[in-house]
């Protein structure tokens, strides 16, 4: 008899504990409803891509030496380097360079291995067209610089997590002039100069 009552008591205790857990869960879910949504409302708000963002590739025609390292190092041998050998100057002459961004995987190998740094990656990711043949950028199109998201009057640019001030997680409604966490190079230089000045004084 006593054992049965103890079993009932244990059952009731477990039930109350389960109800308490569900209640705590409900309070967490309810608490989330009063937070500001984290939605980035594209196209009226856009995230500012980071410095090393692997966007569309940029090509400087004058720096290219037509070595074709970018083609060899590309996983799909994508860049089309149209060069001829100029017999008078005994040098390679680059006639045309193109990359098809419908096929490119934006891995950045070509940028990493280019010996003359004529290839770099921009922050542009909005490459959609109505016809896939328009994605085959020639050297003129590759040489264009993308439109900065901070210059677009219709867009509110939002910073990504790494560029937010210390302790802030939400890029909306940042006060003007807030800097990212960490020190700027000028401040680090000033800090390094101070102990040296103190050392020379002492």
């Amino acid at each position: 008899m006593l054992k049965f009552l103890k079993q009932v008591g244990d059952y009731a205790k477990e039930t109350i504990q389960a109800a308490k857990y569900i209640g705590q869960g409900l309070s967490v879910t309810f608490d989330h409803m009063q937070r500001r949504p984290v939605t980035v409302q594209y196209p009226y708000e856009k995230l500012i891509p980071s410095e090393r963002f692997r966007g569309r590739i940029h090509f400087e025609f004058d720096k290219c030496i037509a070595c074709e390292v970018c083609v060899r190092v590309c996983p799909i041998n994508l860049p089309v380097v149209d060069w001829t050998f100029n017999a008078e100057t005994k040098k390679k002459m680059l006639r045309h360079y193109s990359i098809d961004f419908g096929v490119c995987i934006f891995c950045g190998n070509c940028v990493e291995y280019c010996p003359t740094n004529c290839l770099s990656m921009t922050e542009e990711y909005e490459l959609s067209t109505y016809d896939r043949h328009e994605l085959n950028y020639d050297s003129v199109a590759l040489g264009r610089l993308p439109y900065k998201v901070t210059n677009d009057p219709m867009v509110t640019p939002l910073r990504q997590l790494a560029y937010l001030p210390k302790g802030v997680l939400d890029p909306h409604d940042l006060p003007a002039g807030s800097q990212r966490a960490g020190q700027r190079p000028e401040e680090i230089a000033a800090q390094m100069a101070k102990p040296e000045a103190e050392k020379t004084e002492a």
Partner: protein
Amino acid sequence: MESGIDLQATFIQSLMDLGLPAGLAKAIWMPLPMLLMIIGATVGVLVSVWLERKISAAAQQRIGPEYIGPLGVLAPVADGLKLIFKEDTLPARADSFLFTLGPVLVVIPVFLSYLIVPFGQNLVVTDVGMGVFLWIALSSVVPIGLLMSGYASNNKYSLLGGLRAAAQSISYEIPLALAVLAVVMMSNSLSTIDIVKQQSGYGILGWNVWRQPIGFIIFWIAALAECERIPFDLPEAEEELVAGYQTEYSGMKFALFYLGSYVNLVLSALLVAVLYLGGWSFPVPLDLVAGLFGVGEANPILQIVTAGLGIAMTLLKAYFLIFLAVLLRWTVPRVRIDQLLDLGWKFLLPISLVNLLLTAALKISFPFAFGG
């Protein structure tokens, strides 16, 4: 607040004054409340779909539908239009009659149960003497539809999903019925209007939720399981069994399942409001307030205000329960089929029996408080 506004009598009387015979006047009146209730149920579904998407978004720190109509209110309309335009497929070698009949049997009993939902003293389609029992009996037709849908899909995973859905639906009918039985025992009547009237008169203190707290929780859990809402949505969960018994359905037939699920949710919320939260009664008894202001009971403005407040209160209580259901959806993990059946048979059933015994004992010992 005793008799309220009698729309039926005034409508028939005004038609008879225009010269129509009594029989024709009554025949013209008959389809009107039914039509109004069906329209009300459909609008309720649209609102509850919108509410679900907005509340889910808020709980997940998103925004939800925003640009489809102001505040996204046309989102369920867009959903409905999309489903109407989709192709209505029939799987190869599936029994087409059963395939079509399955969703129909799942949805029609729910719409039919709106007969008994009262919004006021005389604001109900018809005062059926055995109101809640009719609802419980009609909800027992749903497992047949689920089995039909699962079997007729010619898909072994749909069949398993249909079997599980039917098992879930059947298992949770008994605790549901027993919780309702405790309330009925206290009200001495199966009619929903009598149940609400028994709770009125004392404002918020008279509601059944204080006298039947365990019954309220049992009823709510069993109702969520009948509606196949998370955490009990194993048969139609997106990650399990593809979509269970609904896998092979598309277009209008799937729209019937989708609609039926939300109509069931709204119906369950309304019935919890009626059975446990006092239906149309205001937290402060309105005849007391009217007495304080010295307004007579037969004052037509008072009657209109009372009726309007009654409808608003019912809807507000139902909205609170729908909000709770949506919040639960994003709080609690899904239960497995064995945990689900354990919960129904080994937990809710004994507790609802104990609740029934307790209510009976309290009714005998304190007849003035527990419905003598």
